């Protein structure tokens, strides 16, 4: 097991170096001088230009620049935002809980609907329900979620007036951030009105972000269940007279869940991609919206640091899923 863990962890190192290289070259590949690019159309006077070049270390050779950069990164220093002058890592840490809260709720939504739908579709194979689930999940998989979000706003916020259009909580509530997750913080503060407000703000974005994972989970659960239901031990369980529900829930589901858990773990990248779009539509104050705004403000250190941090988060979650998978399924460990 230790060897398995060490191999998997060591495989991550080149990926990490690759991500730092990408983040490092990001600023240097922008056409023209990076400082002029950051200064934008206003231009910059030559003395200040020279001073900034020194400050950013652009006057040194590329390799030593990378050496300085990676040393800083390993010390947790990702530079400062040009716009706010705040540390990139501080800004990220302040906004990340909003993205996690959204992503966790999205995955919960996807699981609560996707798992039962996939299981039922497999048990009732080729029924109308099965075809319905497969059709809907293919549509979900093909969904342009930025449009799906607008459509839900149109229906639930504009037509029915049920949910707010944007933001994380109504302006009159101020919740002291303890965990950074508004749903939990508002409950800790005992403020149920604030909790309701936070929840009503969260529902639509979570549905939008959960749509693609929902489709993937439903499809994956169905095919994993179909495979398991065809196994001999299921036939044995049925033959000895176990109740069908017991066979499905106890015997089949447990083994079918292994590939499903992996797929859920691998949805992290998809969730970040979705979060960028979802947060933009709903003005959700998370890291996705932050990155998009960084582009329009030409705030390259934010884009650079944010890309690196998100890359590391995705990489770590993938590694974790990999290790967990090895833990549940011994066959993986020994190959």
């Amino acid at each position: 097991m230790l060897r398995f863990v060490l191999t998997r962890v060591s495989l991550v190192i080149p990926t990490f170096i690759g991500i730092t290289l990408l983040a490092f070259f990001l600023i240097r590949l922008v056409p023209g001088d990076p400082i002029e690019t950051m200064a934008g159309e206003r231009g910059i006077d030559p003395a200040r230009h020279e001073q900034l070049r020194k400050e950013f270390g652009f006057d040194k050779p590329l390799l030593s620049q990378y050496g300085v950069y990676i040393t800083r990164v390993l010390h947790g220093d990702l530079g400062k935002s040009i716009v706010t002058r705040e540390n990139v890592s501080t800004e990220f840490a302040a906004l990340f809980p909003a993205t996690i809260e959204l992503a966790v709720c999205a995955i919960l939504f996807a699981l609560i609907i996707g798992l039962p739908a996939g299981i039922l579709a497999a048990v009732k194979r080729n029924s109308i329900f099965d075809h319905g689930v497969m059709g809907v999940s293919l549509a979900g998989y093909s969904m342009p979620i930025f449009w799906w979000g607008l459509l839900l706003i149109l229906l639930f916020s504009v037509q029915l007036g049920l949910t707010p259009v944007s933001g994380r909580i109504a302006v009159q509530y101020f919740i002291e951030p303890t965990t950074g997750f508004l749903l939990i913080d508002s409950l800790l503060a005992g403020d149920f009105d604030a909790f309701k407000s936070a929840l009503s703000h969260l529902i639509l974005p979570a549905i939008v972000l959960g749509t693609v994972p929902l489709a993937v989970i439903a499809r994956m659960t169905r095919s994993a269940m179909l495979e398991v239901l065809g196994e001999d031990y299921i036939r044995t369980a049925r033959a000895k007279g176990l109740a069908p529900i017991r066979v499905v829930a106890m015997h089949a589901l447990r083994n079918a869940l292994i590939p499903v858990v992996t797929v859920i773990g691998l949805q992290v990248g998809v969730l970040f991609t979705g979060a960028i779009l979802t947060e933009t539509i709903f003005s959700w104050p998370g890291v996705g919206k932050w990155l998009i705004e960084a582009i329009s403000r030409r705030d390259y250190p934010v884009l650079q640091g944010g890309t690196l941090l998100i890359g590391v988060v995705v990489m770590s979650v993938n590694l974790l899923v990999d290790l967990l998978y090895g833990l549940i399924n011994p066959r993986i460990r020994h190959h």
Partner: protein
Amino acid sequence: MSADVIEAQAAAAPPARPHPLREFWTYFSANRGAVAGLVVIALVFLLALFADFIAPHSPYVTNNAVFLKPPFWQDGGSLSYPLGTDAIGRDILSRLLYGARLSLMIGVAVVALSIVVGVILGLIAGFFRGATEIVIMRAMDIVLTLPSLLLAIVIVAILGPGLMNAMLAVAIVVLPHYVRITRAAVIAETSKDYVTAARVTGAGTLRLMFKEVLPNCAAPLIVQATLGVSTAILDAAALGFLGLGAQPPAPEWGTMLADAREFVLRAWWVVTFPGVAILVTVLAFNLLGDGLRDALDPKLKR
């Protein structure tokens, strides 16, 4: 490429079996979803091709007299603007029709670029192994680790916004799939007897790569390419929506949605139709891709 494969198989097959093309069609046409996808794609293609004749208006001409006119079945709508007009009086139907051109062009161009580069990299990785392979495959792992849209955004941030750069970014993002498929297929094929035979008769590496091995990897690549068109259309539209893809006034569907965002409270049709166009087209390509996979994948054949 596919025709070569099919002919090659036909020559080798015993006479009792039906023609591979016929066999393929038997499997494919049994899948109603796939056939529906094919029909929709053909329709979108024809609409795009004949947009000049079908579109009632120019996609660019604005008309002060008809701001935010609703579709014809609503009060205030008229048949001269069947799906209504946008905020500066452009006909939405005409923009959607010309948008179909852009989206199909994006899908095909992105897939063509990524398949050519991906196949070459995959062939190199599969044939030369060793350090070359490690470098190529590690690079692909990095591309796969980053969330696809984030990577595309970073690339566009480097190159600057615009349709061409957005297409290039999406092509890079989807590249690893083609490299992986080709490499895996090459490694599986090169151990087979026909490759050894070709090598013994003196075929060079290039000949082995392109004449012998590549045609036999075609099936998974065709499937991936079909599914890739839908990813390309979707991602390019997302970039357009974020203001990083096609720039206004281009009638690209994602860009149209970006323009329409602020009118979501007043004019549902401006927001609804471009999204329907994206969804239907992407869905059709996914259906076709699934159908092709079932029909071409010998492992699933009974």
